[in-house]
């Protein structure tokens, strides 16, 4: 058996003195909460499942003992004990898990998704570690001595995001304490089956100081947690504390495959049982107090209404036609420079803006040079990260939770997949499941698109995979709306996770450059408007919907279609892909009755398909002819001519439009 799997076999100490009593009382309270939750579960009064920490209560108690106001705790699925230890909010917790409005998250989050001031839990293993690192970065910048703490289980040692976070926390010396609750099992899996090498060797490899303790020696655990917390507070760098412990009940409910004798052995050395036996009178009093409090909490929760019904979802029905304003867009700089200037302008104006990404510091300034010189101009606000996309987005999440305005750059849009968990399961969920206690003003910028010969993994347009996530927005810039103004307005109003789709070829295009005669350029009144290129003096024969990097191609095609084929096309180019304002598209289609949807990415279940479906739902008779142009279902070849042949462009658009 490996060193890590050995169960520490020291004699538990039975005695309890003054200051310990309070901590024991807390541990007893936590156990009572968990036991009551199991009862409620059995009675069918809970939703979903619960992961109880029975047997592990002391970890939360010990850490909480040394935290201060302003410290921020990130927890996981097994978070009830941590939560009660830190907040003492039994009532909020019980009501939350019972799905009541009086719950700490209004019943929206439930067992694994708790949030109170300075406390966040999420049920995605390892996902909170980069968020904790981001929070630690924010804490470090605000020169106080607060720290971030992240609880993880030993099964989570398998998650890559953890190592991205450890690496960054150490390299950047972030004040974050990682507390590993080593209970030897991940759900049903015994540690030796999945763990290679040692546990502490891992943080040590990143140069992170480590400490060890266990829950059978509470006083020593209190000492070690104090050392760990103080170490982080003092050095403003990370620390890793391994706490050996044992889960006495099932992983969640009815899913225990461990040897009953092994479990029984651990019950016999359970520190709380031992304490209660040794201090029968005090212990009984503690238990009674706990029982009464928890029972009262359950009673109160039972009387409270269930989670507030969802607000009416938007129907998506167009109830207002767009108001079009003529656009004034003099010829300007290249798109890349407009973005750069806007970042600089806004960083000057708003100290909260920080940039995170790979290779973005000077003199390199990003793979596409968007951030050139900014690291020199704004020291301490532009961060070169390791190649760690999950951590980049996770850091962004932590910074956003701390009230900053992180702008993450994912070097190639293709690698957004590596950051997807942070965007989808963290950023997009926090506001709702934490019941509006937080906002996540996170901006992720990334270039999509091909035609540069970068091949199958550096040329895709993957935005379709990120469309339709409630509480997020996906925006696509283009050269007919000044990207600088776009970013000014985005910074002024960002209130949710935002994905900005840039485009590699678009970077070099001049904003507001040469435009076809005979077409009026107009915007809707949205601050991030839909753009229309309207054929003047005639009704359109065809509506072409496109976005982002497709616009220059579509414009060229539209010019040729009129010049050579006398077909008058109207281009509708939304900037907000999600949530989508269908109005401008619908209006145009009602005029032309013909719709061509153009996008560079794969067409299956993509933006065009969604637009088509919505048009059909809202105005079933409106369309006579509809077609989509998208990438064929094929990986993108690197060979230039072949790639051009494959990806939608001017030629395909002309062919299809005729």
């Amino acid at each position, binding site marked *: 058996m490996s060193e890590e799997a050995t169960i520490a076999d020291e004699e538990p100490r039975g005695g309890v003195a003054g200051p310990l009593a309070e901590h024991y009382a807390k541990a007893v309270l936590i156990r009572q909460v968990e036991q009551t939750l199991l009862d409620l579960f059995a009675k069918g009064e809970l939703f979903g499942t619960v992961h109880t920490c029975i047997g592990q209560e002391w970890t939360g108690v010990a850490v909480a003992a040394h935290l201060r106001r302003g410290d921020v705790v990130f927890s996981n699925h097994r978070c009830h004990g941590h939560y009660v230890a830190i907040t003492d909010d039994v009532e909020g917790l019980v009501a939350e898990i019972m799905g009541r409005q009086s719950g700490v998250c209004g019943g929206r989050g439930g067992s694994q998704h708790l949030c109170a001031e300075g406390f966040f839990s999420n049920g995605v293993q390892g996902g909170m570690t980069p968020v904790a690192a981001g929070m630690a970065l924010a804490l470090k910048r605000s020169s106080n001595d607060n720290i971030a703490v992240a609880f993880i289980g030993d099964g989570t040692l398998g998650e890559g995001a953890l190592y991205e976070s450890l690496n960054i926390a150490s390299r950047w010396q972030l004040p974050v304490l990682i507390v590993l609750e080593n209970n030897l099992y991940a759900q049903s899996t015994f540690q030796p089956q999945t763990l290679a090498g040692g546990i502490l060797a891992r943080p040590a490899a990143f140069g992170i100081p480590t400490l060890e303790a266990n829950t059978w020696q509470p006083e020593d655990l209190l000492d070690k947690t104090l050392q760990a917390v103080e170490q982080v507070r003092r050095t403003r760098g990370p620390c890793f504390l391994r706490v050996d412990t044992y889960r006495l009940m099932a992983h969640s409910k009815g899913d225990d495959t461990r040897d009953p004798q092994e479990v029984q052995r651990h019950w016999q050395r359970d520190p709380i049982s031992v304490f209660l036996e040794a201090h029968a009178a005090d212990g009984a009093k503690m238990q009674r107090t706990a029982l009464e409090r928890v029972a009262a909490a359950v009673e109160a929760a039972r009387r409270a209404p269930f989670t507030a019904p969802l607000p009416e979802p938007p*129907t998506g029905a167009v*109830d207002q036609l767009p108001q079009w304003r003529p656009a004034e867009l003099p010829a300007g700089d290249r798109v890349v420079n407009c973005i750069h200037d806007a970042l600089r302008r806004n960083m000057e104006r708003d100290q909260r803006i920080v940039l995170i990404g790979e290779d973005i510091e000077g003199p390199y300034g990003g793979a596409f040079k968007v951030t050139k010189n900014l690291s020199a101009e704004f020291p301490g606000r532009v961060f070169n990260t390791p190649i760690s996309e999950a951590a980049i987005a996770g850091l962004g999440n932590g910074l956003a939770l701390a009230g900053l305005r992180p702008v993450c750059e994912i070097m190639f849009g293709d690698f957004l997949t590596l950051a997807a968990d942070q965007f989808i399961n963290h950023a997009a969920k926090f506001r709702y499941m934490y019941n509006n206690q937080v906002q996540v003003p996170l901006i992720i910028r990334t270039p999509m698109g091909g035609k540069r010969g970068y091949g199958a993994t550096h040329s895709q347009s993957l935005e379709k995979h990120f469309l339709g996530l409630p509480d997020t927005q996906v925006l696509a810039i283009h050269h007919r709306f000044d990207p600088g103004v776009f970013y000014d307005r985005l910074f002024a109003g960002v209130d949710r996770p935002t994905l900005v789709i840039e485009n590699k070829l678009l970077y070099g295009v001049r904003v507001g450059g040469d435009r076809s*005669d*005979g077409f009026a350029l107009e915007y809707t009144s949205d601050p991030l408007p839909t753009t229309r290129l309207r054929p003047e003096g005639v009704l359109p024969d065809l509506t072409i919907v496109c976005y982002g990097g497709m616009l220059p191609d579509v414009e060229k095609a539209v010019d040729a279609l009129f*010049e050579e084929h*006398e077909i008058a096309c109207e281009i509708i180019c939304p900037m907000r892909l999600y949530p989508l304002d269908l109005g401008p598209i619908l209006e145009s289609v009602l005029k032309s*009755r013909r719709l061509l949807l153009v996008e560079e990415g794969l067409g299956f279940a993509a933006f065009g398909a969604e637009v088509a479906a919505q048009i059909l739902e809202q105005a079933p008779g409106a369309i006579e002819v509809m077609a989509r142009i998208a990438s064929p279902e094929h990986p993108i070849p690197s060979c230039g001519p072949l790639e051009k042949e494959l990806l939608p462009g001017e030629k395909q658009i002309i062919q299809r439009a005729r």
Partner: protein
Amino acid sequence: MSCKDKGEPVLVYLPKENNNDESARLLAWRVAAGTRVTAGQALAEFETSKTTFELYAPVEGIVQYRHRDGDEIAVGSLVCLVSEDGRAAFPEEPPKKAAAVQTTPPVVAAAPQPGLAVGAFMSREPVAQGRRFSARARELLSRHGLDPEQFAKRGLVRAQDVLACLPVPAEATIPGEARSQKGPQNTRILGPAAGVPYRTEQISRSKRLEIAFLRSGSQHTLPSAVTLTCPTRGLRAAAERAGMSLSAVLVYEAGRLLQKFPAFSSFFADDCHHFYQEVNIALAFDAGQGLKTPVLRRADAKSLQELEGELRELMVQYLNDELAVESLAGGTFTITDLAQEGAAFFSPLINQGQSAILGVGAELFAPEQSQGWFHLILAFDHQLSNGREATQFLVELRRRLLAYEQAWGGVHREEPFCQHCERTLSTLREIKAHLVEEVRPDGAKGQVCSLCLRGL
């Protein structure tokens, strides 16, 4: 009740008739302003996209109003007031309501009637700022020495727009030109036939909405076509035997029918239906010298002999390549006969400034059969007519052509037959049907079988 009771004028507002219309058109006042009306008396007739309705006086009194016939009035706004002395002051319209109707176009909700909205969109388009010529338009400009400035602020200018501005609609009126290109936009009507007077009728609001709805982005015509099969035992051969020109007969009969069906000698522009007050029939022919469409003016007023003479004359001019420009202009309806070429069925394209074109196909006979058939095709602008009317036109024409065939002795029926379905008496017997004598409204007699009789 009378308005005397209160001494105050009673305000009459436009009621909401349905969910589609935010306004209604005032078709006509039924009473003159200042008239004394009784309660319940009809005041005015309105039209919505769905229906027409009348507005009645709520009380007795003198009617005052400011709207005129034809006005579009917003739902909920003041139509008139009824007062005792007829001298009540008009209240200020609540500006919000009026503004709402003008600036907020109808909502495009989940309603499956986007037609309404389309109407709204069209009027929303701002005026063009510049102009832009297509390649073909540019070429035409230089070929005809036209000043591009003529098109200032016209937005996109296509070949057809330039053609519409030519002093004599030279090539534009020649269907060959249109036929040489593809795409529906070539059949668009741009302006009236040069120099032909016409009268104008308003197109009803509901029809306009239908038009707006059906319009497929192309602005001018909505081409549709109806085909009718005509039984024949050799109409052409019979005409030849009788020394008659079938073309002249077609022009003659079509000319007369067009008086009955004026919609096919008309054009659509600016949301209005314009009816030509002359029937000028263009006859498309191509005898190897290129396709030309000489026009037989006032075909409805000329005798068959006159038309025959004129046709012969035009034919000579055509063969000598001497057709005058004037003889090519001013057609209000076109006939194209592709029998010579052997085309049995084809879809003719409507010419500029017109609303219909008649196609006549070649006769077809099965081997060893004397009974054959040919097709009459009427392509027409669905904005101005409909399939039913087009069919009626063709049925009537078929009846007349059959009469010629009989008169010329082309049809030698050994036995009586149904003049609608052409089944002979023996065939009818086999299927247990019979023939009855029929007298048509015009007094002509004929036979109809029991099957068709039931169908009719």
